[in-house]
């Protein structure tokens, strides 16, 4: 024990001297250790081969971390102290486990600190797509490549971006696909158009189905009329259950079809009804011989009387091969305001690609799931005898396009920089130039070697020799360039392991991949040559332009999505009967709200802390409707002021954040509380420990979430974290699983999938933060959280550093983080200032 005391004494001194971060188990636990552990686990007894006497309370090596991990594990699992030995009091255990698990997190971070080393980065999937687009002007779908996300980190972390042989082949395939799509030669395509009267096909189909239903039903009744005198077979049925089948489907479907055909609106257009088999979709097929490009769908449409506001949106998307009836790969959603007397025409641009789908569909907004539509249909059928009443009507759809601004396409004119090959006398010489130019462009900074270029050229020559035409022969070498390290990796050499300042060219690349996830554009390259990066003022101008450029959407969305762990939004399918309004369009709008709020804060130079609390929201028409705010015009996001008593404004008021803290059905108090601690309070709970005994006492009883989770306080292993997590989650219980406000919650006891008991209770959102700040309700919680500006600044700055530099945040980054915060605070916490400060920092300019 002497040794430990000595080392702690030393460390305490060091701490006073302002030395580096350490992972220390507090001295206060010595006595406890001595009392409960050392009896058996001292140097002389070493029970079970475990000697804790020489275990340093300063966790500074992988070895000591492993031993402490074992102490933590056996205490968490209740293995130690053994049952027949004196036990720690709950209080002692809670505090010790709390301290040790936190110090273990610190130790792991210390031990895995790279000391600022930035590992070379492979382009991640997003960057790959954007970089290909920059080179060739076409979008490829890199979704087939392995997922780049890694636990806890960002998809820019070089050390976690692996490379495998399968990937090599996929890159080659994708490059070939991109080149195929980019190689569009010949004359500029002429505009074409067509007109589609929506009711024609729809009515024909419905008439056919309903006639068949009626015929089969009549036949069934004809057999019934014989009262057993004849066999079902005599009427064309297999047996009696076959008869019942036709009767059943007739009863389920027929009346709704009849009603549809009887409505006068169905004679002039298509009603976007829901049927037993799925939603009605008005579909338009773009002929295969129409060239790729942007087309405009002009949809003449109207709302029907009696429609609810959330239904009066038209969703559009692609109809994939093999999709179930009514399901779309959704592209967007438009509010419909026209009436039958005065229909409107919506102009919807859609992109047609060479290999992509060509069938587009229009549908009334609803859950994008046939099963959900059927459930809703049956519910309505039970209540009214008919399917749900349609809310929208489409008269006709016209298609016109492609809209092509520049010809030849950008990819072609960049590749074939000196005109088409057939205008060149020596096409092989031209090929050599094209290859060299392309390789230089693709490699960004590094010059491709002569030997490499030579080999690329021989690939072309070999292809020619095997009888290929020019445009076929040149494809391989270009695809190979896009599969080479020079293209796939962001390379920053440091000969002799000497850390060094980046060149201006390299700096431009790092900057562009940070803010755009794409290579530098012409303007940025010019700036790099003009010395604009050397002076803070001119550099700030450069950053401003980049953030105002739409390409920075990539940074905002990708950074924010990963920073706030928004992937949870995609984990669950929301129960459509319970949350009819939280469909795909609502969920995507909710996701966008987070990004668009970030964008608005950046654009208007607002403080970061608007994310904690604000008197405005940034919403589109769908979300304004979802939040019961006054309608906003258009699907563009816009800033809207909130009434004083609104729970919205800031992250804690956003539907996306609450939906992430649910499982699609119920809220998760723990998930929400832990999220607030991780992301807003910068006080992440340690990872869920292994082998903690499960609490099952409260399962299957009709209890409020608060009563259920209070059981956490009974066991020290649980209480160590949950006493901090749970109260925050309870403070957010006024938001249901889909983020709508509620004053009461409905408790249900479900046994074998049936609700056995129900009870309504008022939400009690009172509680306290880990530091003891108390609140009476959600508004109080939000106010308390909004006070923790420093904590939130640290959370934001650390993630920003990690994302931008492509490595985990480490303790060695602390001074950088503090400088960023200081600079931002000097400007009232402007979010933009964090970014500028980071870009101007030494770390961002250095490769080590």
């Amino acid at each position: 024990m002497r040794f430990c005391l000595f080392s702690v004494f030393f460390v305490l001194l060091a701490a006073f001297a302002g030395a580096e971060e350490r992972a220390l188990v507090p001295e206060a636990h010595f006595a406890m250790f001595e009392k409960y552990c050392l009896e058996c686990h001292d140097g002389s007894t070493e029970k079970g081969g475990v000697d804790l006497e020489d275990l340093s309370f300063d966790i500074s090596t992988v070895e000591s971390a492993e031993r402490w991990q074992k102490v933590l594990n056996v205490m968490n699992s209740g293995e130690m102290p053994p049952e027949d030995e004196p036990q720690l009091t709950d209080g002692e255990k809670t505090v010790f486990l709390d301290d040790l698990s936190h110090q273990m997190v610190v130790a792991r971070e210390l031990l895995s600190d790279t000391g600022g080393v930035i590992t070379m980065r492979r382009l991640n999937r997003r960057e790959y797509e954007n970089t290909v687009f920059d080179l060739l002007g076409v979008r490829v779908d890199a979704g087939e490549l392995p997922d780049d996300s890694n636990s806890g980190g960002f998809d820019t972390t070089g050390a976690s971006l692996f490379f495998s042989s399968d990937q090599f082949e996929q890159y080659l395939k994708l490059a070939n696909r991109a080149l195929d799509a980019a190689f569009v030669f010949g004359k500029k395509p002429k505009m074409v158009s067509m007109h589609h009267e929506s009711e024609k096909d729809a009515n024909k189909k419905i008439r056919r189905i309903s006639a068949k239903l009626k015929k089969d039903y009549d036949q069934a009744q004809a057999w019934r009329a014989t009262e057993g005198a004849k066999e079902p077979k005599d009427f064309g049925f297999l047996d009696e259950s076959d008869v019942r089948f036709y009767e059943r489907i007739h009863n389920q479907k027929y009346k709704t079809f009849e009603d549809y055909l009887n409505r006068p609106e169905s004679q002039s257009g298509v009603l976007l009804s829901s049927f037993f088999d799925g939603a009605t979709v008005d579909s338009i097929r773009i002929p295969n011989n129409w060239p790729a490009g942007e087309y405009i769908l002009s949809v003449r449409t109207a709302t029907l009387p009696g429609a609810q506001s959330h239904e009066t949106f038209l969703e559009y998307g692609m109809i994939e091969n093999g999709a179930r009836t009514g399901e779309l790969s959704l592209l967007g959603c438009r509010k419909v305001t026209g009436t039958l007397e005065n229909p409107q025409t919506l102009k919807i641009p859609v992109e047609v690609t060479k290999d992509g789908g060509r069938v587009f569909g229009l549908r009334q907004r609803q859950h994008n799931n046939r099963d959900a539509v059927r459930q809703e249909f049956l519910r309505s059928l039970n209540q009214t005898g008919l399917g749900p009443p349609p809310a929208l009507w489409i008269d006709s759809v016209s298609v016109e396009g492609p809209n092509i601004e520049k010809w030849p396409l950008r990819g072609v004119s960049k590749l074939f920089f000196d005109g088409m090959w057939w205008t060149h006398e020596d096409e092989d010489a031209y090929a050599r130039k094209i290859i060299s130019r392309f390789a230089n462009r693709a490699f960004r900074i590094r010059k491709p070697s002569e030997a490499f270029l030579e080999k690329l050229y021989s690939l072309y020559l070999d292809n020619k020799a095997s009888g290929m035409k020019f445009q076929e022969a040149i494809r391989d070498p270009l695809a190979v360039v896009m599969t080479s390290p020079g293209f796939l990796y962001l390379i920053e050499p440091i000969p002799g392991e000497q850390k060094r300042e980046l060149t201006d060219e390299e700096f431009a690349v790092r900057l562009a991949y940070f803010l755009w996830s794409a290579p530098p554009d012409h303007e940025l390259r010019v700036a790099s040559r003009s010395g604009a990066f050397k002076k803070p003022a001119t550099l700030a101008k450069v950053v401003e332009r980049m953030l105002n450029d739409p390409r920075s959407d990539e940074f905002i969305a990708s950074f924010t999505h990963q920073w706030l762990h928004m992937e949870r939004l995609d984990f669950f399918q929301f129960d459509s009967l319970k949350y009819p309004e939280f469909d795909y369009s609502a969920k995507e709008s909710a996701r966008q709200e987070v990004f668009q709020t970030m964008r608005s804060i950046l654009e208007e130079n607002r403080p970061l802390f608007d994310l904690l609390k604000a008197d405005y929201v940034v919403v589109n028409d769908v979300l304004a409707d979802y939040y019961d705010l006054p309608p906003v015009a258009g699907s563009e996001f816009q800033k809207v002021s909130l009434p004083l008593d609104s729970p919205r404004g800031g992250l804690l008021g956003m539907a996306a954040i609450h939906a992430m803290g649910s499982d699609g059905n119920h809220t998760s108090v723990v998930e929400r509380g832990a999220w607030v601690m991780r992301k807003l309070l910068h006080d992440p709970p340690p990872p869920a420990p292994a082998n903690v005994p499960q609490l099952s006492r409260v399962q299957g009883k009709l209890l409020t979430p608060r009563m259920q989770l209070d059981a956490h306080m009974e066991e020290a292993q649980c209480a160590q974290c949950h006493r901090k997590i749970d109260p925050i989650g309870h403070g957010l219980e006024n938001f249901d699983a889909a983020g709508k406000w509620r004053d009461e919650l409905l408790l249900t006891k479900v046994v074998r999938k049936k609700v056995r008991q129900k009870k309504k209770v008022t939400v009690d959102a009172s509680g306290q933060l880990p530091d003891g700040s108390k609140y009476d309700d959600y508004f109080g919680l939000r106010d308390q959280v909004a006070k923790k500006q420093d904590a939130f600044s640290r959370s934001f700055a650390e993630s920003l550093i990690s994302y931008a530099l492509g490595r985990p945040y480490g303790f060695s980054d602390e001074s950088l983080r503090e400088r960023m915060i200081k600079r931002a605070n000097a400007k009232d916490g402007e979010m933009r200032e964090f970014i500028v400060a980071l870009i101007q920092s030494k770390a961002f300019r250095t490769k080590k």
Partner: protein
Amino acid sequence: MNTRFSLQRRSFLRSSSALIALPSLESLGFRRFASAAKPVAAPKRFVFLGMGFGVTADTWYPDQKTAGRDYLLPEGLQPLARHKDDLTIVQNLANQYNNEAHWGSTFWLTGANRYAEPGQSFHNTISADQVAAETLGKETRFSSVQLGTTGKENSGHGPGLSLSWNRQGKPMAGLNTPVAAFHRLFSDDSTPLEQRQAALRKQHSILDTVLEDARSAKRGLSKADTDKLDEYFQSIREIETRLSKEEEWLEVPKKKPCKDVKMPEKGVNGVEELKVMYDLMVAAMQVDASRVFTYRQPLETVIKSMGATITAHNMSHYGEGDRKEVSKQRDQKQSELFAHFIDRLKATPDGEGTSLFDNTTLTLGTNIHSIHYLTNCPTVVTGGGSGIQHGRHFVMEPKTPLCNLWLSLLNGSGIPTESHGDSTGQIDELFG
């Protein structure tokens, strides 16, 4: 006939125009068709099935007091009853270093310590299947086959691209849909031989070209970056090995699966996906496309397809009540499908008088016991590949390294291995 060199086999085939007369096992190392030659022992095979989140503790594990032959199969394993004499259940195996309560697959076959490398927040080592593949994979078209599932689901597997990690401890990609697996394993290239030869030549020059750039990119890189770029070099080497194998196999058409395995439907998921993948593995073994298989199994979609409305993570935190029901149903379905897989392997002949089952070692399990527990990982071993005397239930000392089992299985299958992961020695009881 000299059977040592693959090229000679090809010339044999060519001279006798016997392409069609290939045996059902097309491996080069396995030549029953040479009538004069003595039958060679059928090859050993491995299948590792990773379940993700753990099982229902009180209805899956046999009573620990009933070690030995006389034990009862609990509810969760009941569907395997007809194979009881061929099963080995081992309790109390664990990976001592794994502290990640949601990572059922990352270290399952490796036993690595995530934090072993100072300055790194993640580290892994080679998985048992890849150790096996280094030996067993030499003579088949595919050294190993990794199967997985798509989707951003949370099924309790943890980081990784499949169950497999290569010699460098890097994740290996998997075939994530039945369609992708089918194409890789069985689709035949219909292009004429000469064109395929030309294509191979072109692939060689493509690799040669990218290597040229990789070599010049390497100049001046830091140590960490050189290690990163090594992944690229390693990938190219792997493709070259694959290409030279392909050259050997160029004139041997890919064997088609037996008639009851059809091209899988696009988009199958859940229970159906598990079934189809099992069928594909049987077919792949039948034609000896590979001898080492891992399958990181879907779970979220499996319970969804069984009608559950909760998430897999939620299920794994069962208490008393509906969540536990889902967890139990999942165990039973898992066992039922596994039993069916065993049926198929038993029914498929492999060598003289033996079945695929007799020569294969199958393990079903995960690094997660149940809920957040990482001790006593669920482990069922079956198949005759490594010479285990089945029909018994072993209760080991608590926290016996899971790697001791992997070590035993490797050695039992004729792959001499001194240690694997954190192994401390073989489990000799398994064999006698």
